[in-house]
């Protein structure tokens, strides 16, 4: 709230554009940083392999074309796997499902977490207590263990894995969004709508959510990284697609006994997963940095927050 008698300068018009499509601008500015460019390129590389791969694989991923663990040869540039299938074809065909599951899990986790966090912060009282205590309970389990627990109870169903991974993210997301919402729900423009007796649900959806786009974007990037790791990890442990299917996580497990005979069967899928997570992590880091910077810049032009001063030269 302003101090009585304090005239407040209007921010320069350049900031206006930036604030309205803040998240778009955050993304585009993140891409333009070095960190962002590197992250996005790494991500794009792996995604391209996973998406285009199935169509350009030279062999069927499940066909036996060579001897088990045979080294690279003209028809099979990365050699054969544990059962004599073409490693290259399996690598090309075995990525899209991991990506899809990770994306779905992220979407679900961020969605559920955001809903919980925003409701907790906005409704306060018992809703807050209930939601946040549940969050604490869920947080007490490491997310991988939690997913494993669910899968081993209900069985390795793909949808279940997606839900379990997503659910394991929700508490973290809820915490982050709760704190952002606490700040926004005290703003006057929210109070103005409350004074009309508008339902809390509508206030959260129409007034508060649009202001949270930036933290949501940052959080989604971070959660995607974790989802990829967990989904691939679960596949490695055998909780994923059942064996004949090509799958990077599964491949690492199947081929690790022949590591000395044909390392490619392990190294390539492992490298792809690594590159992907490094890519998403780097990119979401770039986004987070830009987003923080945006916040700071907005403060700078608000004299209420005090002047940010720069010495000459």
């Amino acid at each position, binding site marked *: 709230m*302003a101090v009585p008698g304090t005239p407040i300068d209007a921010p320069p018009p350049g900031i206006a554009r930036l604030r309205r499509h803040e998240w778009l601008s955050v993304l585009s500015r993140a891409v333009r940083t070095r960190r962002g460019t590197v992250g996005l390129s790494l991500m794009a590389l792996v995604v391209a392999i996973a998406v285009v791969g199935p169509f350009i694989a030279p062999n069927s991923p499940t066909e036996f074309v060579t001897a088990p663990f045979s080294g690279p040869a003209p028809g099979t540039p990365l050699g054969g796997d544990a059962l004599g299938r073409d490693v290259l074809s399996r690598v090309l065909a075995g990525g899209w499902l991991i990506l899809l599951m990770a994306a779905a899990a992220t979407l679900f986790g961020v969605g559920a977490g955001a809903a919980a966090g925003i409701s907790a912060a906005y409704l306060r009282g018992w809703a807050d207590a209930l939601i946040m205590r549940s969050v604490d309970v869920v947080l007490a389990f490491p997310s991988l263990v939690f997913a494993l627990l669910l899968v081993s109870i209900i069985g390795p169903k793909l949808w279940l894995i997606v839900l379990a991974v997503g659910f394991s993210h929700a508490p973290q997301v809820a915490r982050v969004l709760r704190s952002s919402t606490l700040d926004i729900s005290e703003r006057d423009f929210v109070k103005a709508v409350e004074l009309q007796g508008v339902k809390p649900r509508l206030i959260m959806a129409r007034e508060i959510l649009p202001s949270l786009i930036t933290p949501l974007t940052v959080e989604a990037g971070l959660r995607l990284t974790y989802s990829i790791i967990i989904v691939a990890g679960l596949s490695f442990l055998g909780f994923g697609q059942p064996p004949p299917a090509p799958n990077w996580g599964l491949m690492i497990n199947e081929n690790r006994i022949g590591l000395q005979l044909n390392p490619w069967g392990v190294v390539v899928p492992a490298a792809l997963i690594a590159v992907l997570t490094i890519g998403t992590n780097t990119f979401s880091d770039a986004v987070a940095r830009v987003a923080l910077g945006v916040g700071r810049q907005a403060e700078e032009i608000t004299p209420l927050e005090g002047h940010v001063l720069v010495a000459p030269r």
Partner: protein
Amino acid sequence: MMVGAAHALRPQPARLVVENLRIVVAGTSTDVVDEVSFTVRAGEVLGLVGESGSGKTTVALALLGYHRRGLAVGGGRVMLDGSDLLAMSAEELQGVRGAMVSYVPQDPGSALNPALPVGLQLGEILGAHQDPGVSRDADRVTEVLAEAQLDATREFLRRYPHQLSGGQQQRVAIAMAFACRPRLIVLDEPTTGLDVTTQRHVLETIRSLCRSYGVAAVYVSHDLAVIGQLAQQVAVMYAGRVVELGPTETIFGAPAHPYTRALLRAVPSPERSEVLEGIEGQAPRPGRRPTGCFFAPRCPDVLPICRESPPPFVPLLAGAHLVRCVRAEEPVTRSVIARTVPASDPPTSLSSGTLEVRDLSARYGPAPVLYEIDLRVGPEQCVAIVGESGSGKTTLARCVVGLHDNWTGNVDFCGEPLACGARRRTKGSLQRIQYVFQNPYTSLNPRKTVGQIIDQPLEHFSHFSPIERERRVVAELEDVSLSSDFLGRYPDQLSGGERQRVALARALVVEPELLVCDEVTSALDVSVQAIIVELLRRLQRERNLAMLFITHNLALVRSIAQTVVVLSAGKVVEQGPVEEVLERPRETYTIRLLEDIPKLAETRTNGGRWR
């Protein structure tokens, strides 16, 4: 006193000489501030006045060798006792700041380290800029605090900044600024946010310290009345230029620039009920300034020649009075007689109140803030609630509208009791009472267009078709003097005054019966405040609105309300018709409040040519 008298007699040497200061947007030739020149003598205070965006803060920062990010010094000199601050290296400047130049910010909290006790901080300051002539021990700290009218008891020195009141914090900040006997002090609206009484004392302290130690001071403010009480010289800034510069008496008594006259007319007076005249429009931003006189688009006296080339800054008769206006030497032609507001009809019948508050007590957590308040707002009547910060006036407003629900007592609206919180009230009563927030910079959702913002309550409360709603939104916009061009704009494309009009339109579009305005002009410039107050007065009359007008500014009350309620520490001190309370206040509290308001009249000397 002796020292002060001596200074007044003998002309002091020039301490600070600013010559053609130019600040540009870094990397461009767009100037933010240009051709700024003035001189301040030792012991003298120069008041730098202007609306927001006039460049006054930019100039003030340049005097410290600072500028905001994205700006750069484009030329000129800031000479302090003969050495140019703008030519110094960063290290040299570091040595100069604090020792020779010091700064008192608007928010005293930002000058103090929240983690250190006050005594320790002062000791550090004194130690950091060691002056061999000055002993630096506990005595010195006590002395410094005493100069700022603070009693340096052990207990006081051990306190942390957050344990002090706003006034005390500001005094500590002032004590710190004066502690090392600087040659120049820059004060950036240090009394905004303080109560009138505290403000008066702080101003007195500043004036006497400058006198006795021969410090040159530059006092930045948008409040002409404050400047009038303190400064010997006034520089009026508009769009990055000094448009009028001269001795305080001349500027207030015989202002020659149309902008200065307009600013003076916009200041509300506690003595007379006047029509306030604001200045429509806003100052052009850097890079979009017109070729001729920058004030031409808003100037009532504009001539075709004004638009041709920028008017020169020329001295008038006496020489010490400089004006940047081609018509400065002409006699004032425009009718400048203040229009007094026709005495408003006495409140019809007090018995049939639209809003009746009885025995209202409110708490914040365990702390009581309001005690047994009784008040009544009749139909079509405007009641002003006046109080200093902490008086509970905002809480009172919030209880009435339902934002604050921790209260007991009765609030009846049109004969029906209102529930505590907004959520428990009927849709009807929510619609009939509308609230306008203090700060238009936070009350509008930055992600919605003006059209969406005004339409939102209409959509919620009415069953009109979208077309009918749009028609009403446009009509409402026009009623608050904005055009339908604004529909698609976002709040951050609007000026403060425009935002507050949008907020008003949002409240009025659902045709309420009672409008609660909480300090709606306090975040705005005086010139804009005048416009908003006039707008409110017109709308109140046209729409037969009952209004509860919350303010800390007693002078404003005169211009808008019929009844005034003076609130102090959660209790009603005095209430009654405005003329009676302001002219014949009975309670000492009200009397003191009235006395402490900075008044233009105290500085006006020869007849008030601008009125």
